[in-house]
């Protein structure tokens, strides 16, 4: 082994370097490269091209990703629509909006008028018929279904509202005693129990061209929790009208 490294030249020439590795073909390639300098060596352009391609790809990818992030943060609802899912908070907000709209519509019907058609249906005996010893008023039912139906869970809830909790009474009193009603303002609060709401309606009333006065009518509303009846009222009642029904029902 002593002489091995000093024999490296012979060892390499006999093995890995064996033969002539610089052929006439190699010379031709070199002459051609000199004559056509624009033809770059493959090793020169390939890594550069690859690097540039990867770099551009990364830029496009990052830009695309950033755009998506900006869009998603600005318009969460759009993202939801794309994904087809909603967050709990967004569902609650939507439900809240639907319920408050229902309360507002019912109060508008209750305190705008008097609604002469309603009062006529309520008071005129010609609409009443007796079937199986039971008095019926199909026209009234039809009208009630039309004006209150979209906001109540079913017709029995409307009947309960009118029969037991003072629904339409302000219209009747106002008509009988010549008052005009107008809804000025509504404040609606959601209770701790998410399907219970309270409201305060500021109602304007006026008679014979006198100065218009206002009264606050307070009440509470309970909504259905059933999926099919989402946003529909189960119970609607007046709690305190601060004397408005007394005023409207009085002849003075």
């Amino acid at each position, binding site marked *: 082994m*002593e002489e091995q490294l000093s024999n490296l030249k012979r060892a390499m020439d006999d*093995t890995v*370097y064996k033969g002539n590795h610089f052929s006439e073909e190699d010379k031709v390639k070199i002459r051609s490269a000199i004559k056509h300098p624009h033809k770059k060596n493959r090793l020169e352009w390939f890594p550069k091209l690859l690097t540039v391609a990867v770099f551009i790809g990364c830029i496009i990818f990052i830009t695309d990703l950033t755009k998506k992030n900006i869009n998603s943060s600005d318009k969460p609802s759009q993202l939801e629509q794309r994904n087809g899912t909603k967050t709990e908070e967004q569902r609650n907000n939507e439900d809240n909006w639907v319920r408050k709209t229902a309360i507002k519509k019912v109060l508008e019907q209750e305190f705008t008028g008097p609604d002469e058609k309603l009062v006529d249906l309520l008071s005129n005996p010609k609409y009443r018929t007796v079937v199986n010893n039971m008095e019926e008023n199909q026209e009234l039912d039809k009208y009630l279904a039309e004006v209150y139906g979209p906001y109540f869970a079913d017709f029995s809830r409307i009947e309960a509202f009118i029969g037991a909790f003072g629904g339409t009474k302000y219209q009747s009193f106002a008509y009988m005693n010549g008052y005009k009603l107008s809804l000025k303002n509504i404040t609606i609060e959601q209770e701790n129990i998410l399907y219970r709401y309270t409201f305060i309606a500021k109602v304007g009333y006026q008679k014979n061209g006198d100065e218009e006065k206002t009264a606050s009518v307070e009440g509470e509303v309970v909504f259905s929790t059933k999926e099919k009846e989402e946003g529909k009222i189960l119970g609607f009642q007046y709690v305190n009208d601060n004397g408005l029904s007394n005023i409207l029902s009085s002849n003075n």
Partner: protein
Amino acid sequence: MAKENTENNHFTKNNQDEWLEIIMSDYGDRLKKLAFSYLKDWGLAQDVVQEVFVTCYNQYDKGSEIRYFKAWIYRITINRCKDMLKSSFLKRYYFNNNLLKHFINKDLSPEERLVLKNEKEKLSQTVLSLPVKYREVIIIFYYEEMTITEIAELLAINENTVKTRLNRGRILVKKILGGSELYGRTIE
């Protein structure tokens, strides 16, 4: 090794094309082998040699400024090889080749195994397997038969560094080959 007194004549004789033919004949094979010792691939070695000769051709006008042509052409070859070794492309190339070798070696025929056992082959492969900084001094010293001073100048490093690398290179070869004495040629 004695300096070639007439080596700078490469730039003074003949016209540019004839001169290219001369240096290709004189240095083509030597430079390709030198490049192979760095890159361990004949295709890449050819690419380097081609670039070197193109550079030479383009520098023909500055020929008179080059004192020792052999040292100059060796230096640009080595530098180009080192540039290539640094490039990520080559690293990938090596990686793939080494992977390939790994799979191929698993299925060596008995004849091939016998060839590898050959002492000369073993020595050559051992030297080529060294890290570049030891491999280059070992090959330039033992194969190209340059002196320590010439190597220091060629690689632009200190003479003592050349000696240290030579010694460490020898130790590595010894370890790999499992031999005890490898000092065939003295340093000084």
